[in-house]
């Protein structure tokens, strides 16, 4: 029994890792005032790039770099359309998802059914991983897990306590006032979108070269959309994102755990999506002013306009 609990908790953290990575990115992006609904597409781009590069070079780290670069570049399209052209961020994000899923399907076709020889190795942390129970659960993971947690802490610290963080948040709260302080809001927003893209790419890389070691078309399976909900659940706070992401990781794992009880696997597969609705519902019971959403989220900002 103890073994099962340990293994469930360990897999919960693994399943939550890509959600956490992408949620940090979306939190940063939305804090600057830009809603990016294209996470699903950028994650797919990241997954396929990481897989192809890892497959050809045999080095999952190069795969990670490729994923970051590819997804960051893809996100620039969204930045251009929603910041420079001030178009609807909702439509642009949807287009980005379609494009990302399409390109990843096209590029990844020859690699379907070819597993990697080597996936990202786990890094047991010396000493800490020897602690009974806790060590196995928390300190015997692939580097992605540690990176996700550390990046969440960094993002939380930067957003909350640094000048840069204040600039990012004020770009999302009141871009016009921020501009009068001599800050280039467009530039800040561009960078935040790109960072969001890079983190989605990391999430994708985790899916194809660490979580599993194969490329399957549509392997993101709606995680990108769950991330959008998690961002709201986290109240745009990377610290809370850690809780949310691993909660959902647990829900993903629970599907497989409950299957032996004779519940239809199809009904269990609904769990993450039902829980997303539930999470939003719980969030909605709060006073919306207390939710602390960026005031100018998804509102196009026109420099020098009225």
């Amino acid at each position, binding site marked *: 029994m103890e073994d099962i609990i340990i293994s469930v908790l360990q897999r919960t953290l693994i399943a939550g890792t890509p959600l956490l990575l992408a949620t940090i990115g979306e939190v940063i992006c939305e804090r600057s005032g830009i809603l990016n609904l294209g996470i699903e597409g950028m994650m797919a781009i990241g997954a396929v790039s990481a897989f192809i590069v890892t497959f050809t070079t045999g080095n999952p780290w190069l795969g990670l770099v490729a994923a970051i670069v590819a997804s960051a570049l893809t996100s620039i399209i969204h930045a251009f359309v929603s910041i420079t052209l001030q178009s609807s961020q909702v439509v642009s994000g949807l287009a980005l998802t379609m494009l990302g899923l399409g390109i990843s399907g096209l590029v990844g076709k020859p690699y379907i059914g070819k597993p990697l020889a080597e996936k990202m190795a786990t890094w047991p942390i010396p000493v800490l991983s020897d602690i009974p129970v806790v060590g196995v659960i928390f300190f015997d993971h692939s580097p992605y897990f540690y990176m996700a947690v550390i990046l969440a802490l960094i993002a939380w610290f930067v957003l909350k306590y640094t000048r840069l963080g204040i600039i990012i948040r004020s770009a999302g709260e009141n871009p016009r006032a921020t501009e009068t302080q001599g800050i280039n809001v467009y530039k800040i927003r561009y960078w935040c979108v790109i960072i969001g893209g890079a983190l989605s790419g990391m999430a994708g890389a985790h899916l194809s070269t660490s979580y599993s070691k194969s490329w399957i078309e549509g392997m993101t399976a709606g995680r990108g959309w769950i991330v959008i*909900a998690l961002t709201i659940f986290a109240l745009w706070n990377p610290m809370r994102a850690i809780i949310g992401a691993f909660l959902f990781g647990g829900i993903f794992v629970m599907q497989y755990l409950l299957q032996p009880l004779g519940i239809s696997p199809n009904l269990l597969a609904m769990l993450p999506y039902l829980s997303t*609705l539930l999470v939003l519902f719980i969030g909605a019971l709060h006073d919306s002013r207390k939710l602390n959403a960026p005031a100018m989220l998804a509102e196009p900002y026109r420099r020098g306009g009225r």
Partner: protein
Amino acid sequence: MNIRVTERIDILPRHSVLSLGCSLAAGLLAISSIFLISGVNPLYAIAKIFSGSFGSIYGIKETITKAIPLILIGSGLTLAFRAKFWNIGAESQLLMGAIFGTWVGLNWGPHLPAPVIVPLMFMAGFVGGGLWGLIPAILKVKFSINEVISTLMMNYICNEFMKFLIVGPWRGKTKHGFPYTDDLPLSATLSVIPGSRIHYATLLIAVAVVIILGIAVYRTRFGYEVRVIGENPDAAKYSGIDFFRTTIIIMIISGGAAGLAGVGEAAGIHHYLSYPESISSGYGFTAIIVAWLAKLNPVNVIFSALFFAGILVGGDAIQISLGLPAATVQIFNGTLLFFLIMGDFFLKNQVTLQWREEGN
């Protein structure tokens, strides 16, 4: 060099047409580069797509067949998008329509003649899609839950629900263990134009929906309310528009139209329920761009639906001849959608380049 952006004051029809033409041309160019990078000859691929869809009688018949669900869903979406209700869930509203319609067909079909059962199935489909569309509307208006996420999550939920039905309680006794429902009885299937797969009953309904929505949007108070809610929700509240009621009606119509399309697919094409991805090849998502290309005008939807149906049919053709994955169509959809919204920018704004001389 200096770039200056000023808002256009008067937008002439020829500007709209020009921006549309440029967007489509630029979009095709971008798609070509994607093909080129992936090692596919773009001229061959694009020629193949359009010859596959519009280049033969067979192609045209198939294009019309696939345009039917796109017209229905697309025209319903114009209504939702006008009110800035981002209904991304048409895919599952279609499936719910198919599920409801098939239930009626399977259970009542054997006892009732076609003229009774077919309208009943369409009504059931409308109710199924409408109810599935109603939920996110209530969630948005009463609980301010973002409709993009709720409609998407409901897509995944409905997908699993449908799979649950076909492998579980609804699995057909005559299907040798395959995950399909039994065939619909003959009276509950839609007749087609001979030599094609065009189930004309659904086509007629689709055209009727377009006309009704066209009138509703431009000629009724309801259409006016939809516009106000979309363009200025605050003004809508002060001018006494019932936000809740209007949103509910919009989503029942939008979801219901998708549900009608679902009945058409189930009873007109497949004649039984199988996996969600074979009942709808992404019509709910493609219809988003159909609505956008139509500039949210229900009547234009007929033309943009035919255009995108052509891409779907041609997409099937190049999948076979070039061995491309089904996702290729998504590249078309995504890229064209990007260029359409970029085109809107150049339509609304005048962009001038100024070359400043030295010493100025």
